[in-house]
């Protein structure tokens, strides 16, 4: 594979420096690094200063309800070779706390504020963890998977009658075409209106 030369060099450099990191070259210009949660800060610092990944493109969060974990994903971009590193780590879901990276990138502040509001993760060191998009939100953060948005909507907002015989799109389409819904999609298909 001639094309993945730069990516493999980057992966090698990372795994040489961080022995516990799981590095995989996902595809062209995409390297995924799985790290221990205490190694994220040194890794970001190393990638920014030594490997020229100067741009923090995004921080996102995934809720792994079954494993009782939150996954944080830091996307870093290198402008010279256009490679993007996704640095992933798991944090505890019960008491979600993590270190703020506003000292490295100012834009991290906004992502951390949003994650605090949507997932309830407390970023220590972020000085601006105030109300962001939601106003006067009470109760559990809405992007967590154990938050029942249908029930909340029915309790809070008035539901005008007339939607009772509304059909689920996926069930209707599969019935019409005679297909079967795959096992993985069944959880998300059937909903009590």
């Amino acid at each position, binding site marked *: 594979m001639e094309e993945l030369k730069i990516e493999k060099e980057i992966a090698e450099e990372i795994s040489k420096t961080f022995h516990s990191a799981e590095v995989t070259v996902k595809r062209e210009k995409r390297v995924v690094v799985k790290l221990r949660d205490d190694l994220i800060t040194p890794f970001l610092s190393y990638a920014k200063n030594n490997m020229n990944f100067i741009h923090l493109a995004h921080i996102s969060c995934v809720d792994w309800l079954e494993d009782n974990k939150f996954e944080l994903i830091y996307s870093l971009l290198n402008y010279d070779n256009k490679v993007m590193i996704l640095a992933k780590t798991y944090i505890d879901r019960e008491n979600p706390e993590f270190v703020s990276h506003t000292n490295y990138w100012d834009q991290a502040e906004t992502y951390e504020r949003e994650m605090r509001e949507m997932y309830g993760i407390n970023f220590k060191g972020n000085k601006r963890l105030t109300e962001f*998009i*939601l*106003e*006067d939100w*009470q109760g559990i953060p*809405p992007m967590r998977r154990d*938050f029942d*948005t*249908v029930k*909340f*909507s029915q309790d*809070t*907002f*008035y*539901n*005008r009658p*007339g*939607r009772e015989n509304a059909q689920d799109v996926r069930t209707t389409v599969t019935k019409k075409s005679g297909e079967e819904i795959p096992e993985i999609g069944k959880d998300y298909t059937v909903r009590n209106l």
Partner: protein
Amino acid sequence: MYNDKDAKKIVDIIQSYARKHSLWVVAYGTGCGAIEIPPTMTSRYDAERFGIRGSATPRQADVLLITGYLAVKTLKRVIRTYEQMQAPKFVMGFGSCTINGGMYWDSYNTINALDRYLPVDVFINGCMPRPEAVISGFIKLQQLISEGKAEGAEKYLKNLEWYRENQNKVIPNWNMPDYNW
């Protein structure tokens, strides 16, 4: 002696005639439906031939268009805008989101029925309603005005407690000024 009843009626007719031919709409887009307003106002559909035109401030406007879904945060601003408007004022619900929630019916942050929070004179269905539908909604509103049936503002004042109760249910932190109409 002149007939009091008849005299009032003539004034009413003139008043509603003037009102229905100058509907000024607040330039305030709440959801995705606001994208249908520029084509409605500009040369192709030219809503100004019906006397419909934009207004910069709520205090000079007659019509408040709720264009699409309303987040709770936006609802707060919309209520404030509506209460600043001077009577006669009319509200038009635009798109299926204002009627029963539309495609955001299960969202945690958008209201499902607009007429629980503000008095709506005309609903336009569709997702999104095309400019033709918007203009037909405005013509319906003009019809209601000329018949004297567009009484949303009076309804709001009369049932203010009921509206406030519904509004306070979704806006827990009520820190808005009371307007003296």
